[in-house]
């Protein structure tokens, strides 16, 4: 091994040592952001209309909802989201959009929310399920 390779290896090891605690705490599939009750969708968490009419995907013992580009779940009285998308939830999302249920009469069939925040109901009954 040449000297500059040794030096580079040392730098990489030092960098890993410095980042390891951070990687261990944020690189896992854990929710790291909590939201108090009453934290409205302006701040990103799924509104009541969305929870009431959208199928969850069950993962890690919680029903999870894909909204605004994130997966949310409720832990006690607080909404949390996965900082990094768990692979099973990613595969679920790619396989089918969240199933929505529209209760309005057909002639006024429109909605206000989508999994991406804003827009129209996705419709259909695919999606959801257990992971």
């Amino acid at each position, binding site marked *: 091994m040449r000297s500059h390779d040794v030096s580079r290896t040392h730098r990489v090891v030092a960098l890993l040592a410095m980042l390891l605690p951070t990687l261990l705490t944020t690189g896992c599939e854990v929710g790291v952001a909590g939201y108090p009750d009453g934290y409205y969708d302006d701040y990103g968490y799924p509104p009541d*209309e969305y929870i009431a009419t959208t*199928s*969850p995907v069950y993962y890690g013992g*919680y029903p999870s909802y894909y909204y605004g580009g994130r997966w949310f779940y*409720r832990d006690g009285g607080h909404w949390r989201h996965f900082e990094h998308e768990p692979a099973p939830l990613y595969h679920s999302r790619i396989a089918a959009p969240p*199933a929505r*249920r529209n209760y*309005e009469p057909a002639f006024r069939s429109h909605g206000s929310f989508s999994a991406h925040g804003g827009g129209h109901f996705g419709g259909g009954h695919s999606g959801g399920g257990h992971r």
Partner: protein
Amino acid sequence: MEHHRFHHYGGSTLFVVMSLDTLAVAPATQGTVTQLRNELVGSMAPARTAEQALMTTLADGVAQGTVDTAKADADASQVSAAARAVHDGTGDTLNRLHATLATPERMALADKVEAHWAVWQRANADETGTRPDEHTHLADLSDALGLTVEQRDRVRVALAESLKAVPPLDAKAVDAQLRTFTTAFAGPSFDVRAMTAASDVDARMVGWAASHLAHFVEAMTPALNADQRDALAARLREHAAHDPTGEATP
């Protein structure tokens, strides 16, 4: 939102049924859950019939230009009485539903019931439409029926007077009862028959909603022209015939 303005008959049981529609239960239990859902829908049938009668009374009155307030009040009372019976008749079914669902599914159902209640409260709040930018019932109907500013102001005044006859809903009591239900349902042990106050709270909630809708329509009707009355009557008849609980399976 509109659904929660026109359909109240099942009270919290209707929230449960609507929650089952998007619960995404495990395939192994889907058949059982569908059967239990159908039992709940069947238990609500008399209340739904009573609500249909109220809608028809209101639609007939709107079309004629004057609502028969005595008949509408009697119909609203029937809806309330039927709602009380719904809760009393669904205890065993709800207990079996709790035993059938897995813990995460029960948590999801609890979240959904609370979400429906939150939407219901917003749908039925501030009916006077004093904030034009909000989607109040009056604001939405004003857009749908093409009310002029003068008509809208006239309705607003009439509504404020008419709704004095409707005793306010004790939303805190409903909220407390629903939270008792959802907390217990999400937990490991559950017996809805122990919730003795639930049927009374449900009946009061449904009775308030039915009476509130009747007074809303009664106050609005005199301010409408013939075309607008036809449109509102048609909307009421559509809701009388509309049965979302019969359209989905969990």
